């Protein structure tokens, strides 16, 4: 498919003799909300780790907008347009909320400012600092976190930490956002709110989103297509409703 934004070709990885993921073929279209589901240990986060350069795939490869990204370093892949959140939150805990977002912003071309310029405190240093601050506030506003911007990240309540992680990833200006269990541990109200935000990211910012989630209401409410993994292999792929009612999938989740 020519208009696939992310395409993986027989992507797989083995650790020693264990094939953690094998033969994964994904095609995600621009502005699609795509789900990756499966029981614990199915290899979902491993897929994210391969797509972001944390792990080097043993087999296959993947492309973003036609460019092969396999073998590129983590920060290069991020610069090319893939950003992610983590299953167990990994914020910069002892930094304020706005600084977390500003770290995400720091590689954007419009905010580029060499250490030498900062060191000499040239006017460009101050203008980029102000511009970054404004942009960071704008991003925080999407997540309703603007009021909290000067609090330390570790002092935020859990649900807001989850949202801040997405905000920080968004700040790196990705084309494709990978969300690893974004709704985990959220109450129904927060989940509802998050669904609205994720939809907004697609509609208002043109993002393509691949998400891992166990909350099936969340998945079927958001994703139009999903891939179900079990023990590292694809169980089924396709439109969400059909895939979730697949007897194989039900068997994998609740047994025979």
């Amino acid at each position, binding site marked *: 498919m020519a208009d696939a934004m992310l395409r993986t070709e027989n992507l797989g990885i083995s650790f020693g003799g264990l094939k953690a993921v094998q033969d994964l073929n994904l095609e995600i279209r621009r502005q699609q909300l795509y789900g990756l589901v499966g029981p614990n240990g199915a290899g979902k986060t491993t897929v994210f780790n391969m797509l972001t350069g944390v792990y080097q795939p043993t087999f296959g490869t993947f492309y973003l907008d036609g460019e092969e990204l396999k073998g590129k370093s983590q920060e290069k892949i991020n610069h090319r347009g893939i950003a992610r959140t983590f299953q167990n939150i990994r914020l910069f805990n002892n930094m304020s909320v706005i600084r977390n977002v500003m770290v995400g912003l*720091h*590689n954007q071309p419009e905010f580029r400012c060499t250490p030498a310029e900062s*060191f000499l405190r040239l006017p460009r240093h101050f203008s980029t600092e102000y511009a970054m601050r404004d942009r960071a506030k704008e991003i925080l506003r999407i997540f309703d976190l603007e009021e909290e911007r000067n609090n330390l990240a570790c002092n935020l309540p859990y649900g807001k930490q989850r949202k801040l992680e997405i905000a920080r990833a968004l700040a790196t200006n990705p084309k494709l956002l990978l969300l690893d269990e974004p709704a985990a541990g959220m109450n129904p109200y927060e989940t509802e709110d998050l669904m609205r935000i994720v939809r907004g990211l697609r509609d208002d910012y043109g993002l393509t989103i691949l998400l891992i989630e166990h909350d099936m209401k969340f998945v079927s409410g958001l994703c139009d297509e999903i891939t179900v993994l079990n023990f590292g292999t694809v169980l089924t792929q396709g439109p969400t409703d059909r895939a979730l009612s697949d007897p194989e999938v039900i068997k994998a989740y609740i047994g025979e």
Partner: protein
Amino acid sequence: MSVLFDGLSLGAIYAMIALGYTMVYGIAKMLNFAHGDIIMVGAYAIYTTMVFWGKGLWVAVIGAAVLCTLMGILMEKLAYKPLRGASPLAVLITAIGVSYLLQSLAQLIFGVTPRPVNLGSFGSVEILGASIPVSTVLTLVIGAVLMAGLTLFVNKTNTGRAMQAVSEDRGAAQLMGVNVNFIIMITFAIGSALAAAASVFYLMQIPLVEPLLGSMPGIKAFTAAVIGGIGSIPGAMIGGVMLGVIEKICLSIDAIKDYTTAIEFGLLILILLVRPIGLLGKKRREKV
């Protein structure tokens, strides 16, 4: 009064060196035991430019700063970068190796005999009724300016924020597009430049260069960094100043002056017993 000033300026020297230890530890998560020897490199650079080439102090200072910075970057690229991700013990041993390498190189090039280097006389000024050498005042003022500059740099700039992010969670920072290798390089460069500044002020106090010159101030500054809480920038400053003042006070009291070093390290043990993470250290949550 003059004891206090002496102590503060020695403390400023320790603090400048301690900052190098603490920043490298905070960001690269390693103890760079060769850091003290960078002071020695700076001191020999000053010696060579002033005594061999007969240049003035300013040329020597700039030369030392440039050489030390390059040395720090080179050390990181050649010795530590290949070990990124290796066990902390391997990195630690490498650092000790680099330290011996630098010391031996200095012995090969310059011999083991201490050589005098005269930075010039600065006279003294009257402050609050005490006569204080200008070099002491210079150390204090420039030390304070450098530390304030560093604090601003870390808190208010892009690179500083990225440094903080790498220190908090290297993996996450990398995934947010932070170029970790570049940040670690910058950290070594800044630490080494501060060590170069420390070498200038050190020579103002003790105008002798020798290959092992860096080891004692290095260990003292490391102690200061641990007392302040290693990884914490204000901690290194406080620890350094505290240690310098205590050292000078002990040295001024005849009854205990022979035990000065013992008292300093005793203080370290005491503080670690009460507060194992140091004065301003942060508790790190175990990551699973």
